[in-house]
């Protein structure tokens, strides 16, 4: 920004540069940025206002304080002007008196002191009011945002998996963080700014009118200029900011691409071309960036210029008016201060309009999320299986993710307690679909799934899911100690049980080699332990949970062969007596399974035992034989010996 205008600094000139929430940029930074528009501005606004309702009393106080605080500062220049006038008149009177050889008078210090006292009271009160107003507002804004975040999080727990699978994490995260932060900042700053700005503009105009209507009209002529300049600058800078944003996006994309593929870039000697490409984008970014910065930066000098223009007009015309005796010197001084007080609120109001638009757009996105259809609520008389055996049956099940592409049509299988079901198929065959259905992460379209004879839709979700133990391929661990991560499987687990589970998963040894043992805190990406070790932890977690039904999702594919043998033994022990669904490439598991589900491109193409499926000479048989070919498929003899 540029230097301030002469005269008393406008009350709003010196807002702290960073908006709380550390989003950076500040109120000025938003100037000229393209504002996103909400689709339903009014509806969203009203809904946002509803969130403020619990704080309505504090909010009313904030508004009143803001208005009072502003009014007091508006009164001050006029009162100060009276003192100046008194001084000036005495001085002029004395000049005349000297000229006429009459005795001179001393300044009316009684009057000046009186005014100084009034001013001090005004300023102190005003400061107190604006402090209290901001103090209260901090609570109002943050509590509202806290509630908003809490509601969003609670909502997320009620949304079906379908919602999450259809969106990137970044997309959902940005609503909880960026959008909510945006709302917080606006509540904290822009709302009271808007109020004080409007009060200031209106109040200042009224005060100016009481001093000199004619001079007021002359000053007001500069008003359209402000609007004109702001509009012009905003239009241009929006374009450049959009350009800058686009180039920045490209640059980030390129950097992300090249850095994630660093090994390949090096291996293929691509560094020079990568740098050239970067320089191209970087050059374009520079062109867009300086233009955006320049155009948006120019607003301040221009505003300042208009403000100074008003200053000169007042000085000249006001001066002439004083010589004609139409107004006093103090009036001119007050006028100058008033015209300066104008500039900031006007710039800010233009700015705030932008900010409010983007806030409402943010709020709309948050509300959109809050309006997403939830999981079907549980019946009040939902069943809880107290001692599940693990019989699972699918009866005429039909399912599809998208209406027109059925994945499972009329599937009927019956799995008895303790049996093993192997799910096989090429990668990307959509094997997680079955997990989704069994655990009721997704609802089936037709038929029913039962556990121990009970339709899973009549059961409490929590109870249903606790019957299953799951080791997913994408191991999930959270930022906490190893101990806590294993204990995630069962809340009431004792220390001993946790160690025991870790031993059973062959994780105990490596855990003890870590500097803090079981208290080692896994970092954000759990990158302080290896992929294989992570997997061992999730296995330990599943072992601890001791479920009736097991779902193993290619659980050991990242563990080395020798460890795998050990895990396999632990798994076999674990699977003993439990119904198990195993998504595996391992031949022995597949062959020993009572039922094999063969999946391809997301749908179940075959099911039956190993023998049945080989005899059918279908997809499974193909898949099975291809595993042992050396090079040439046609020359291959089916290893029939292995089958019998």
């Amino acid at each position, binding site marked *: 920004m540029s230097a301030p205008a002469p005269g008393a600094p406008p009350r709003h000139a010196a807002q702290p540069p960073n908006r709380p929430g550390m989003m950076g940029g500040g109120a000025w930074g938003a100037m000229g940025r393209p504002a996103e528009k909400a689709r339903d501005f009014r509806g969203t606004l009203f809904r946002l206002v509803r969130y403020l309702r619990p704080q309505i009393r504090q909010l009313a106080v904030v508004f009143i304080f803001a208005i009072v605080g502003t009014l007091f500062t508006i009164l001050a220049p006029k009162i100060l002007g009276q003192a100046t006038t008194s*001084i000036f008149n005495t001085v002029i009177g004395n000049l005349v008196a000297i000229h006429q050889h009459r005795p001179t008078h001393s300044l009316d210090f009684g009057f000046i002191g009186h005014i100084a006292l009034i001013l001090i009271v005004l300023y102190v009160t005003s400061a107190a009011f604006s402090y209290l107003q901001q103090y209260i507002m901090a609570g109002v804004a943050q509590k509202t945002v806290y509630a908003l975040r809490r509601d969003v999080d609670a909502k997320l727990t009620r949304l079906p998996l379908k919602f999450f699978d259809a969106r990137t994490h970044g997309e959902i995260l940005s609503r909880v963080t960026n959008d909510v932060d945006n709302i917080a900042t606006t509540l904290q700053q822009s709302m009271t700014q808007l109020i004080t700005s409007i009060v200031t503009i209106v109040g200042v105009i009224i005060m100016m009118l009481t001093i000199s209507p004619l001079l007021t009209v002359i000053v007001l002529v500069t008003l359209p200029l402000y609007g004109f300049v702001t509009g012009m600058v905003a239009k241009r800078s929006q374009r450049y900011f959009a350009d800058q944003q686009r180039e920045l996006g490209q640059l980030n994309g390129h950097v992300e691409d090249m850095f994630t593929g660093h090994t390949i870039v090096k291996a293929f000697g691509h560094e020079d071309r990568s740098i050239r490409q970067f320089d191209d984008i970087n050059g374009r970014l520079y062109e867009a960036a*300086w233009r955006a910065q320049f155009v948006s930066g120019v607003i301040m000098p221009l505003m300042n210029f208009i403000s100074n223009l008003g200053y000169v007009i007042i000085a000249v015309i006001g001066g002439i008016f004083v010589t004609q005796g139409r107004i006093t010197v103090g009036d001119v001084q007050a006028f100058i201060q008033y015209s300066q007080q104008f500039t900031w609120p006007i710039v800010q109001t233009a700015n705030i309009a932008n900010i409010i638009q983007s806030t409402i757009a943010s709020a709309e996105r948050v509300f959109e999320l809050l309006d997403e259809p939830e999981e079907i609520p549980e019946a009040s008389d939902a069943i809880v299986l107290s001692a599940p055996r693990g019989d699972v049956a699918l009866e005429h099940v039909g399912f599809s993710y998208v209406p027109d592409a059925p994945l499972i049509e009329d599937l009927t299988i019956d799995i008895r307690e303790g049996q093993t079901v192997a799910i096989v198929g090429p990668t990307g065959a959509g094997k997680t679909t079955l997990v989704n259905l069994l655990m009721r992460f997704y609802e089936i379209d037709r038929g029913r799934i039962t556990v121990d004879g009970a339709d899973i839709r009549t059961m409490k979700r929590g109870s249903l899911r606790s019957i299953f133990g799951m080791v997913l391929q994408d191991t999930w661990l959270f930022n906490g100690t190893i101990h806590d991560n294993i204990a995630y499987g069962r809340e009431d687990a004792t220390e001993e049980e946790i160690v025991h589970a870790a031993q059973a998963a062959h994780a105990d040894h490596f855990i003890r080699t870590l500097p803090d043992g079981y208290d080692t805190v896994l970092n954000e990406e759990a990158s302080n332990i290896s992929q294989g070790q992570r997997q061992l932890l999730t296995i330990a977690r599943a072992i601890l949970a001791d479920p009736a039904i097991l779902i193993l999702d290619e659980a050991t594919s990242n563990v080395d062969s020798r460890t795998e043998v050990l895990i*396999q033994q632990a798994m076999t022990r674990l699977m003993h007596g439990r119904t198990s669904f195993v998504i595996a490439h391992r031949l022995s598991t597949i062959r020993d399974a009572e039922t094999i589900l063969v999946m391809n491109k997301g749908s179940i193409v075959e099911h039956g035992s190993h023998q049945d499926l080989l005899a059918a000479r279908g997809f499974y048989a193909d898949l099975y034989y291809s595993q042992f070919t050396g090079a040439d498929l046609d020359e291959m003899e089916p290893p029939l010996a292995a089958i019998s």
Partner: protein
Amino acid sequence: MIRLYRFLKPFSVALLVSVVLIFGQTISQLYLPTLMADIVDNGIARKNVGYIVSTGEVMLLITIGGMVASVAATFLSSRAASGFGRDVRARLFARVETFSLHEFDRFGTATLITRTTNDVTQVQMVTLVILRMMVAAPIMAIGGIVMAYRQDRPLTLVLAVAIPVLVVAIVLTARAAIPLFGLMQSKLDRLNLVMREGLTGIRVIRAFNRVTYQTHRFDEANADVADNAIRANRIVAFLMPVLMLVMNLTSVAILWFGAVRINSGGMQVGSLIAFTQYAMQIMFSFLMVSMLFVMVPRAAASARRINEVLDTEPEILDPDSPTEPVRESSRYTVEFRDATFSYPGAEQPALSHISFSAGPGEVTAIIGGTGAGKSTLVKLIARFYDVDSGAVLVDGVDVRDMLQQSLRSRISYVPQQTVLFSGTIGDNLRFGDQSAEDDDLTRAAEVAQAAQFIQESPGGLDSSVAQGGNNFSGGQKQRLSIARAIVRKPEIYIFDDSFSALDFKTDARVRAGLKPVTTASTVLIVAQRVATVMDADRIVVLDEGQVAGIGTHRDLMLTCGVYREIVASQLSAEEVA
């Protein structure tokens, strides 16, 4: 941050001019109240309308001049700051591109991305603010004091009291608020972390029925953020009213003491008005400087992160007098001579005393458990790391004696984790050989079993690849990555567990297709599955960084216990025979 400003050097002329312009603009700004005082004392008091108008004209000219200077300064500073950002960014990126995997892994991909993008932007923004505001503020403060002093000397004493009060208020508030704002960032990070964990682990959370626990974790983090934000904002709420109060009370003090001065005849009324305005300008410039307290620490942290990268020298450098090896078919293309390698800080070497050779037309398989050092071994060939002792030779020359560019141009590397780049399929396949014709690409795609799905894609070879290749399945990405290696027609192929995402059938077809293509090349395959390596000419069995055995499948079954164990874990007895 100061250190980074060496990148501002090319813009020193622009910056100098911009400082001069800002100086001019500030002077014009400072001159207005003096002229105003003249209007009051000479024009109004003497009822001289002509004087008022002519002074007004001067004021107008000065205002226009000030605006022009200010716009020009903005122009220059915008270009300088953006150019500075551009240069830092370019240097940073080029530096990272020279990093070997050592340096790269030490930082990590995520932070290197942030440093090259966000951190530079952060520093650039603050630089702009400094160029615009922080240059103007001191000029304004000093100029204001000089002008005020000229208007009336004794009255300047009021400022001597007011300014320290102002500074103390700013410093105290900043000291209380800045740590809280720092905390705010870490608490927000924590909230985001919990949120992200809730998203990535959603299946596990629901499967283990721990929704309530997760909600509780989130709520804790959420309340923590809110509490901290309230505290921070309440402290900041204190600053503005206090500063305004100090400034306003100063103007009252000036009024009172000014009146005393006027009464004693030491000062004129116009000077009083001007003085008040100067006082405000001075204090306002202190306010501007106070903003620096908030912005600079954050930018300084960014600058530190940038400098860290710029200060990191790549360990692997080209030799001063490189040897360009000549390819001879009689010679081993790849040779390990008693090579030992440790990752920095590791207690035990990742590979120790590795010796073996591989020649053209041969397939060498490397097998072993996780952490046995398989991937590390093949990375040494491309000189992603340097050995601690011993040597790795390609075409008979130590890889450290060759130009990296020359060494790597002989190698096609297919990594464990497939990496595709945004662009088209064609762009990706041409990654290693820009001059390849479409026909070459198609042939390579056929070998890699990728031709069919490329054809089925709407644009064929021109179909676009999303960032990270996310619009393709794992198997498809792996096949494209294999095709990319084939297009290069290298001397040496390195497949680092590159068939893991393929189903058995495709895996077999790809390997069958590779055979005729690689007859003249040296092929190294890192594998987990025994079936993949059974017919290799040579199998190197690694166990905890050491060679446990070298030989054919049949040899090893007889001689190598580790190998037998691996085989037993994967195949049943009949299949082994």
